[in-house]
């Protein structure tokens, strides 16, 4: 393992220290670990908090700032953060209008955020929690932990962040987040594995002529393994896995802030349809250079056109990564006026910035 790190136990802490040094517009707490806007809490604004294992940078800490997240809780590398982080972070950002937890659907994230939700509620904080589960590589929710939260997370944080900045209340933010999640689908592939510092060796072995298809973002192996193909062939496989994906139904838990209890909600995501306008997001898993992402985008644009999807916005780059893994993911998000309005709104974070 060759990495730009010092002691393995200090990896996340020292990366946060570097981030703090580079970004005085952020405030970083180390025990427990969380990142918030330096001007937090913003009075009267709904506060957005996300979090998850480290190793996906710039997500989530790099998305803290005006027009996006108020707080982020980084766990150890690829390990979900703990409830005390989320709870302390929620207290630090709550400006009186409540806190929305954006939770990627991994068992660890879900269980820890559930505990944190209960703690924050106990403290009198208005809190809601929306699950991101957009990974079309996971087919069913009956025999699995359900679709993982992947690329759409970035788009939700941007869009709902702008809406919160624009004055949406907690319920409106939660409704928008749920909608964006239901409108977005992702699919990822890997050319190489990646190495968790504490593990010291790659999570999986992949032949020099193979790729993994349908990976998540934690260096876990995918659903299938194929012999290497061209960029066009791979992109088409990934794009069609998203575009041709059928309706997806599952039951999620949301928090009833009035009753102080969880309730279940059954949601169905509709498939894409010819004529849909979409935001297309081509993401690097970390080690793939942006030049290769453009080769992917080229083919994606062709496939979308053939399928009657109209790409109206795009994002190309490393935004939700798996350490140094080579590979990419595609996210397509059906766009309506509300979504486009808040996508275009200014954002000023270390990881995503425009209009400000």
């Amino acid at each position: 393992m060759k990495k730009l790190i010092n002691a393995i136990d200090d990896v996340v802490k020292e990366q946060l220290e570097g981030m703090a040094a580079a970004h005085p517009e952020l405030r970083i707490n180390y025990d427990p670990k969380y990142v918030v806007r330096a001007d937090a809490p913003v009075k009267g604004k709904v506060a957005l908090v996300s979090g998850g294992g480290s190793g996906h940078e710039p997500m989530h800490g790099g998305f803290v700032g005006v027009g996006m997240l108020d707080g982020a809780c980084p766990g150890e590398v690829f390990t979900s953060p703990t409830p005390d982080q989320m709870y302390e972070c929620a207290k630090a950002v709550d400006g009186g209008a409540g806190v929305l937890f954006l939770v990627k659907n991994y068992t660890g994230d879900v269980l820890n955020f559930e505990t944190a939700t209960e703690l924050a509620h106990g403290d009198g904080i208005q809190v809601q929690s929306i699950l991101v589960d957009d990974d079309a590589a996971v087919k069913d929710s009956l025999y699995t932990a359900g679709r993982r939260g992947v690329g759409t997370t970035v788009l939700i944080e941007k869009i709902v962040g702008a809406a919160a900045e624009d004055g949406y209340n907690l319920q409106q933010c939660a409704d928008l987040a749920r909608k964006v999640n239901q409108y977005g689908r992702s699919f990822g592939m890997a050319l190489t594995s990646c190495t968790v510092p504490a593990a010291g060796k790659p999570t999986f072995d992949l032949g020099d002529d193979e790729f993994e298809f349908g990976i998540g973002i934690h260096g876990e192996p995918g659903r299938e393994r194929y012999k290497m193909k061209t960029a066009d062939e791979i992109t088409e496989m990934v794009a069609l896995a998203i575009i041709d994906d059928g309706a997806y139904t599952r039951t999620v838990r949301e928090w009833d802030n009035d009753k102080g209890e969880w309730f279940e909600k059954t949601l169905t995501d509709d498939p894409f349809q010819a004529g849909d306008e979409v935001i297309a997001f081509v993401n690097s898993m970390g080690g793939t250079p942006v030049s290769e992402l453009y080769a992917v985008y080229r083919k994606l644009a062709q496939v979308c056109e053939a399928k009657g999807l109209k790409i109206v916005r795009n994002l190309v780059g490393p935004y939700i990564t798996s350490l140094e893994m080579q590979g990419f993911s595609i996210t397509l998000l059906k766009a309506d006026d509300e979504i486009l309005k808040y996508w275009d709104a200014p954002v000023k974070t270390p990881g995503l910035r425009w209009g400000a």
Partner: protein
Amino acid sequence: MAITKAEIVTWLEKITAVIQENKDYLTQLDSPIGDADHGINMSRGFTKVLEKLPSVADTDIGTILKTTGMTLMSSVGGASGPLYGTFFMRAGTAMAAKQELSGDDLYTLLQSGVDGVVQRGRPQLQDKTMYDALLPAVLALRAALDNGSSIHAAVETAVAAAAKGRDDTIPLQARKGRASYLGERSIGHQDPGATSSHLILQALLDSLENQG
């Protein structure tokens, strides 16, 4: 003989030791069907527990277990953090104020812990999780105690059931946790959480020095 507070403290120390010894093994098990961190997570958590132990060793068993649970909750992370955290917090609540435990107490301790795991993680049998080791162990303990076994013998039976439950996860297709994303590729691998659960019960057995 009743289980003493000292034995419970020894239990937690022995868990820490055995997790440390098996850190790489647990992480390796988490590689093919997970994200290669279970040993790292558990080791981080129990190292913290060991640090905290001296400050609560003089209280009661309930407090010791609750502190263990809260420490795991705020240091392990991942799926196993809230699950084992809840396990020990619930076990602690059930043992509130106790300075020693009867065989029935021990059953209640473990049963309460497993109830906590079920409420948080909602596993079902054969989902290929820690529950597949924990539930058979608790049931075996109950049955042995009902049959008049000594505590030591009953725990021995429970550990054997946990080992069997752990081994039985191998042919299963996972339906909970990260491993479930692999579909059929999860078949043929032993569940890391079931493995650590067995180790935790084995450590319990090894701590019951005074039990006949």
